[in-house]
């Protein structure tokens, strides 16, 4: 490969940048298989909240033509016919295994960006054993992660994050790569880009892809050969940056510290239809509590709250109703009680009797970092006389709930939780609950 020419040349002052994207294969399914070796080689799928849609598929399930996100009822026949093993999402397990994967990856490079629950970018620039043979280093990463955690991964390498992503896509798609692919070499890069559709590029969404197609840009190669100026004029700076990244010019740095979320959403489908205002109000209060907890975890406050309620779009015979409302808060807050009070005011406006509600949710936006305690008194009281903030109380509740889950909740969330989403096929919390450890037989 030609890649070595440049790097080995003594004239080059700094080593060529090398980024690896390590991505877990069918992560949720792989997590389920760690403790269930009987499921290796069998069709397995994981369902979304409330067991509604397919969110993870084993290779066997993909082969059956089952697409990501399809509702369970649409594939029930295939499930029976091929005895597909279904699981409810077991987030406690997935989060624990994810942490193990990321900790293992940290051993391979000085910098790691945890990009999502199942992907991490490593900056391998100048990492000595890797400089000598990136493919062998990639294989070592694969071997170590699967041995340590039981999770198979693929490794994509390249001089930019976008190319590392593309390399990973190809490593997953073509087993001949052995799960590791390096796109540092421009010739090799060009060959691959000619056969990959432009929609597979990181950051190119379906809408942008459709617009690119209209302009005759179909493959990644087509996009890479565009002038940055033209793309920036017709699209935006993000797509223009992607073009540069595809040509090996780094525009995106590794973000080692996850940026705070700019939006927090908490919504669920109910296990049964809700008709009463009181029930909806309790569910909404619960979602407000969850969202506020997330907000406090990142030490932020929110300035705007949006709620929505709706009936089921899958039952067109029933009367349909869906509404959303937003409210800008007088003072940014992170207090569960303020959020619930505001959500309730809006819910009173939106609620209409006579409908079977299937889902509701809350979204927090205009999120900013919390201010220092000294500034807090400025806001003082809301209209109804409730203090807008009691940070000490809220933090105390969070601490208690971390030790004793669901021990303390705001009264508005109610006691009857029968609307809670279904998780009938959930596996054991093998790694987070002493009562649910995997059994091993002494045969």
């Amino acid at each position, binding site marked *: 490969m030609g890649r070595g020419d440049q790097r080995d040349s003594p004239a080059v002052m700094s080593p060529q940048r090398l980024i690896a994207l390590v991505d877990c294969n069918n992560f949720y399914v792989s997590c389920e298989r760690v403790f269930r070796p009987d499921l290796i080689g069998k069709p397995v799928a994981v369902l979304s909240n409330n067991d509604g849609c397919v969110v993870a598929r084993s290779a066997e399930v993909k082969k059956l033509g089952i697409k990501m996100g399809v509702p369970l009822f649409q594939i029930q026949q295939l499930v029976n016919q091929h005895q597909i093993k279904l699981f409810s999402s077991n987030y406690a397990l997935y989060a624990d295994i994810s942490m193990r994967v990321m900790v293992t990856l940290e051993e391979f490079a000085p910098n790691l960006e945890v990009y999502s629950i199942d992907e991490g970018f490593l900056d391998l620039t100048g990492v000595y054993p890797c400089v000598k043979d990136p493919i062998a280093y990639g294989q070592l990463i694969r071997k170590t992660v699967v041995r340590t955690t039981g999770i198979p991964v693929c490794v994509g390498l390249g001089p930019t994050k976008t190319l590392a992503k593309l390399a990973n896509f190809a490593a997953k798609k073509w087993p001949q790569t052995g799960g590791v692919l390096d796109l540092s070499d421009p010739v090799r890069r060009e060959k691959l880009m000619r056969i990959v559709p432009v929609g597979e590029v990181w950051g190119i969404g379906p809408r942008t892809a459709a617009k690119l197609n209209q302009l005759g840009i179909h493959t990644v190669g087509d996009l890479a050969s565009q002038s940055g100026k033209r793309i920036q004029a017709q699209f935006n700076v993000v797509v223009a940056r992607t073009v540069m990244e595809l040509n090996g010019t780094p525009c995106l740095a590794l973000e080692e510290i996850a940026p705070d979320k700019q939006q927090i959403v908490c919504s669920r489908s109910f296990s049964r239809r809700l008709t009463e205002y009181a029930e909806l109000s309790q569910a909404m209060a619960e979602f407000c509590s969850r969202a506020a907890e997330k907000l406090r975890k990142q030490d932020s406050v929110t300035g705007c709250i949006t709620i929505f309620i709706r009936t089921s779009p899958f039952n067109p015979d029933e009367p349909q109703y869906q509404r959303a409302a937003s409210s800008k808060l007088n003072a940014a807050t992170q207090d569960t009680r303020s959020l619930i009070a505001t959500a309730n005011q809006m819910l009173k406006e939106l609620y209409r009797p006579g409908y079977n509600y299937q889902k509701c949710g809350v979204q927090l936006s205009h999120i900013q970092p919390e201010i220092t305690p000294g500034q807090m008194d400025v806001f003082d009281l809301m209209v109804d006389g409730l203090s807008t903030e009691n940070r000490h109380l809220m933090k105390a509740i969070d601490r208690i709930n971390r030790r004793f889950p669901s021990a303390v909740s705001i009264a508005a969330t109610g006691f009857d939780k029968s609307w809670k989403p279904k998780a009938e096929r959930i596996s054991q919390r093998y*790694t987070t609950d*002493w009562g649910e450890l995997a059994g091993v037989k002494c*045969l």
Partner: protein
Amino acid sequence: MLIMPTTVLYAASNPKTVNLPLFSGKVSAGFPSPADDYVEKTLDLNELLVQKPAATFFVRAQGESMRGAGIHPNDILVVDRSLEPVPGRIVICALNGELVVKRLKRRGGQWLLGSENPAYRDIILLEELEIVIWGVVTNVIHPL
């Protein structure tokens, strides 16, 4: 599962701003404790039982066949997946789709899985060791 909140917080009916101190220092009087210099930390069992947290899993033993190795039914086994499976170690393996505890042995160029019970015969491994071995057992937690 029924989850009952054990504590319910009601919104305050007559709220008042209360300023809590951000820190409180202890005013020392008299002699400092002579033990102060020796306070280091408390003992943490994790330190003793877990070398590599990312690779360490806990599993629960079922059955009698490993009693000879000190593994009783319901004991918790500490398993390190990153350790090299070498002959003589107790290992967790995936046999016929089940997780099983065995002692790894090497005889006549072959890998064997043995029980600590004369009633069981050694199993000859035909597959590659890497595929079968799930992890290496490092400790047994056995309540008395």
